[in-house]
């Protein structure tokens, strides 16, 4: 058995023992749907911050962003200001107010705020569809990693990913996943912090690596993308972060709105560390291995061939754990959309709490298997799939969520028009621009369409009577 195989198995066994133990401990404290979906609102700022970071830092970052830096160089780093603007918007306009509102899921909030079951149903449906796309990216990344390292066929890696995530998602829900996310973000941050200097040491210096990359392709150390393209990508990520259901749902598990703000600050810290390391790792892996068949392999090849066995094993476990935490977050939100919002609030309002909880767990199993078929076909690289999902998510949710929380006008019709118009605008531009050269990103068109329709329908509708916010906005006070 090689050194890496032995270390990897040892680290993997210890890691799985930890997460399964946390899952079982979470099961003992999970008795109701509220416990399952919000951890009874007991999560503190540091675990909360780690949860937000771990939920967003997924295969899209560790495989996709590293891979994008590998293939396009430095300029991709400029998407991070967009991400952080999204978190700022969330900290000021979304997170604390959403937490104060006191719902269980995002469709819950939207349905109550806009007093419309159509809004609830539409948002729940889109969450299921949109997050299935994101799951495809996670499964594909897992397949790439395991095949690159062990030569195992991707289907087995994907099934193992689904099974291991289900083992701790189904028993403990949000409570277990929060503490597991904290452990995972520690592993990810430490793995990346140590990988960067090791890569620099092996190549022989950052300055030399920069010159060598410039020799391979001048755009790697210059501008691969122009500012309009970077703005489009930044906006896609930023808007989707500000209104991402799987992030917003985590706010409901935190103690209060002050905890939410503090947690977002903690999340910033983790992201800054990881973003800087992803840049260095991507660039230096390109200098060390200039001809990888796929940029998505950069992370796993680096862990396999550059890091020492124990650090490499921990990094590979970090990669897999980041994917698992993202899959876990997506499954919780998507299954809640089906069981709590579509079934419990629309199809069968008299369903008991236990019935909804059982259905939630069943939906988790089904939703975990569906994306595997698409992931095996590898329609695009991981980062591209994530970008597409971010565009549609932002176009669909940003306007109704942010303006719904901060402006008293706007009813169900406005929200429905904004959602459908945003999705349609993003879709139309994606298809129309696919065969043309344009510097306008689909998310810009989607957000513009969504906002235009929202304000137009509000303007055409009746102004609210009296003063103060609608009853739904006062619910959490």
């Amino acid at each position, binding site marked *: 058995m090689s*050194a890496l195989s032995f270390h990897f198995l040892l680290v993997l066994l210890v890691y799985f023992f930890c997460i399964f133990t946390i899952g079982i401990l979470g099961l003992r404290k999970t008795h109701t749907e509220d416990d399952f979906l919000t951890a*009874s*609102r*007991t999560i*503190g*700022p*540091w*675990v909360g911050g780690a949860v937000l970071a771990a939920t967003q830092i997924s295969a899209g970052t560790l495989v996709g962003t590293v891979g994008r830096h590998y*293939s*396009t160089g430095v300029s991709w780093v400029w998407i991070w200001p967009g991400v952080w603007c999204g978190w700022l918007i969330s900290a000021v306009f979304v997170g604390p107010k959403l937490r104060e509102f006191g719902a269980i899921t995002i469709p819950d909030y939207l349905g109550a705020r806009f007093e419309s079951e159509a809004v609830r149903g539409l948002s729940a449906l889109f969450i299921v*569809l949109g997050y*299935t*796309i994101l799951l*495809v990216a996670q499964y594909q990344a897992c397949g790439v990693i395991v*095949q*690159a390292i062990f*030569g195992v066929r991707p289907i087995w890696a994907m099934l193992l990913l689904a099974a291991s995530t289900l083992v701790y998602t189904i028993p403990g829900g949000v409570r277990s996943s929060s503490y597991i996310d904290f452990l995972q973000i*520690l592993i990810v*941050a*430490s793995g990346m*912090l*140590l990988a960067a200097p090791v890569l620099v040491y*092996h*190549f022989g210096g950052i300055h*030399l690596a920069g*010159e*060598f990359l*410039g*020799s*391979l392709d001048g755009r790697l150390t210059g501008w691969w993308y122009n500012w309009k393209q970077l703005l489009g990508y930044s906006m896609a990520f930023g808007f989707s972060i500000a209104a991402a259901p799987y992030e917003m749902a985590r706010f409901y598990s935190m*103690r*209060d709105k002050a*905890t939410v703000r503090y947690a977002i600050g903690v999340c910033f810290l983790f992201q800054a560390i990881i973003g800087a390391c992803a840049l260095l790792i991507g660039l230096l892996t390109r*200098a*060390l*291995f*200039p*001809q990888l*068949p*796929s*940029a998505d392999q950069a992370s796993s*090849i680096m862990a396999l*061939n*550059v*890091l*020492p*066995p*124990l*650090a490499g094993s*921990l990094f590979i476990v970090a990669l897999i754990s980041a994917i698992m935490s993202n899959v876990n977050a997506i499954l919780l939100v998507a299954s809640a959309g089906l069981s709590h919002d579509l079934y419990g609030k629309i199809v069968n309002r008299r369903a008991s709490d236990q019935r909804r909880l059982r259905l939630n767990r069943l939906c988790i199993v089904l939703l975990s298997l569906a*994306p595997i078929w*698409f992931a095996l076909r590898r*329609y*695009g690289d991981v*980062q*591209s799939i994530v*970008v*597409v*999902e971010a565009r549609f998510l932002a176009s669909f949710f940003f306007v109704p969520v942010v303006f719904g929380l901060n402006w008293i006008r706007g009813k169900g019709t406005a929200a429905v028009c904004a959602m459908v118009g945003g999705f349609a605008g993003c879709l139309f531009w994606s*298809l129309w621009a696919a065969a043309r050269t344009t510097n306008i990103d689909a998310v810009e068109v989607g957000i513009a369409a969504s906002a235009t329709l929202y304000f137009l329908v509000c303007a055409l509708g009746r102004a609210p009577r009296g003063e103060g916010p609608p009853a739904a906005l006062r619910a959490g006070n």
Partner: protein
Amino acid sequence: MACAKWIGPAALLLAGALGAKAAPGQASARTLADFECDVRLTNQHRASVRALVRIAHADQRPAITFTLVRYPGLAVSGIRVTNGQGSAVPTTMAIENAALLLRADARAAGEGTERETVLVVHYEVNALRGRLARIPLPVPAARSAFGQRPVSITVDLPEGAVPLGDDFPAITWRSPTRGYARLSDVPSLAMIVWRPAGSSSLAGRLFTPPALTDAGMLLILLTGTVIWWRRRKAGATRLKQPSQARE
């Protein structure tokens, strides 16, 4: 709705098509079928490299470009490219910043099938100052097939040498002076750290960068967990402001 079941697959297909369009191009008409590299270190300042490269291609034998890293204080000399039978292949050299580019005209290789080219790259590497640690390898402009491991690197050290275990890529030492690595892709360099027998200390063999990296990672993990656990127990993670009542 009857058509609802098709919404998901249609959306995913669309996303995939859009995503495929957005991905920077990675396609290549050439595939690296085999890369066998022998690195012989004659002393602490000098090494010779011989790399046999087999490339499969769809078109007629193309020109193959090899890229070598140019390290300061390192001289690469005696560069020649031959076919598998030892006949010289016309080669041009160009220097760009920190890279040395060798362009071999494989149409003159005259060996193998029309869909496969075999080239052998030879050169010597001399460290002008200090020890020779990093040896540039000739990276061909061809990618290996996904999931394959066609790259093999053999390292020979001088008699009496002791490898210190700080290698890149990770070398398996079958004997004290002969090591071997099998990879999926060609690295741009091989880093071999070794000392003549009797000249390395116990501390030098124990406190290697890999060992320090492993220790550092464990330290960060344990420290973070312990600090969080102790602060949690002391209530320090709870914010100073009075929290609202649980709903």
